[in-house]
């Protein structure tokens, strides 16, 4: 039987989801009213926003993995924001000091979804939004291990698997804010809860880092810090 360590991140995830459900419960009652487009003189098409995430870049700088991610978001009446996110995820750990394992992958990923502005006064420059994303990536993995020895027989063993084809579909629940700094420039945060829908991890059993999704066995939560420009 495989027993897995229960980690603190799982507990934090559950507590946060419970809190979100409690916070959003009153909203559910008046959901129909909330999601209808407001009737006023503001036109439906309010322009586009392009954004770039800086957390993924910082992850690349300070760890073995991370991603470059940009997004194009359509503003419908300051209320609905259909969005497409495109990124390029990378992971490279060579010769782990404990296990001797090496892992390498890099691939693009795509996300599409919609954000909804939760603020009562929608036509202001700052926004609080909730939304979701559907995401997909197809990637190849190289895994190898130096100095692997059979623990009982003591034979040197080769462990070198290249170009293992993998793919993953997942969903993200998003909550975030963005605030106008000056002119068309906004800065914003988002917190994301990721849930794997379907995955193919090839012939090697599991994959460690999935481009756009992150490390498989870590917390399901992620965050972005976005530089946003109104177009």
């Amino acid at each position, binding site marked *: *039987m495989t*027993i897995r360590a229960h980690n603190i991140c799982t507990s934090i995830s559950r507590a946060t989801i419970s809190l979100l459900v409690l916070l959003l419960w009153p909203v559910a009652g008046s959901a129909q009213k909330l999601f209808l487009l407001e009737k006023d003189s503001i036109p439906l098409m309010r322009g586009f926003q392009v954004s770039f995430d800086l957390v993924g870049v910082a992850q690349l700088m*300070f760890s073995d993995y991370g991603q470059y991610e940009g997004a194009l978001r359509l503003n419908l009446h300051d209320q609905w924001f259909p969005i497409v996110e495109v990124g390029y995820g990378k992971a490279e750990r060579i010769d782990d000091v404990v296990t001797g394992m090496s892992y390498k992958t890099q691939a693009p990923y795509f996300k599409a979804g919609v954000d909804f502005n939760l603020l009562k006064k929608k036509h202001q420059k700052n926004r609080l939004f909730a939304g979701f994303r559907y995401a997909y990536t197809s990637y190849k993995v190289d895994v190898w291990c130096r100095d692997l020895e059979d623990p009982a027989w003591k*034979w040197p*063993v080769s462990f070198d698997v290249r170009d293992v084809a993998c793919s993953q579909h997942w969903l993200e629940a998003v909550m975030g804010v963005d605030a106008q700094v000056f002119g068309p420039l906004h800065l914003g945060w988002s917190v994301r809860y990721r849930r794997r829908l379907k995955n193919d991890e090839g012939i090697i*059993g599991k994959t460690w880092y999935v481009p756009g999704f992150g490390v498989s066995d870590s917390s399901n939560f992620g*965050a972005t810090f976005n530089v946003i420009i109104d177009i």
Partner: protein
Amino acid sequence: MVAAALLACACSSIDCPVQNKVRAVYSIRNAATNAADTLRDSLSVRSKRADRTDTLLLNTSSKVVQFSVLMSYTQPEDTLFFYFRNGAYHATDTVWLKKDDMPHFESVDCKATYFHRLTAVRSTHHAIDSITINNPTVSYDDSSTQHLYLYLKSHN
């Protein structure tokens, strides 16, 4: 932003399987009824290492209905020596276990290992009557899956 990135990186765990040995489970069976039986002799299992010294894979097991033995990572055939003892009685059999090996990866934080698919088994017949494959897929230690049925000869 840097703090968020560090937090995102830090909030991970090493999630390696606790039972990370890959062992074949041998079930003692009664040759007449094919029902589970008990090992009446004491049994040790050894093999030869790369440097030709002995490695002990099972240390004197007795009165059990099943036992498990480690499998080699990538040798195409494991050669195992089964030593049976019961008072003055002793017998030695050799078991040859052929297999296909599949590299298995969990995480960069976990040691690499190999899973196996048993393809053939044969033995000498001093104490062993016969040995057959019941379930060919061998992965992490799982005592509920019996991979091999071991039928022993009776002796006084």
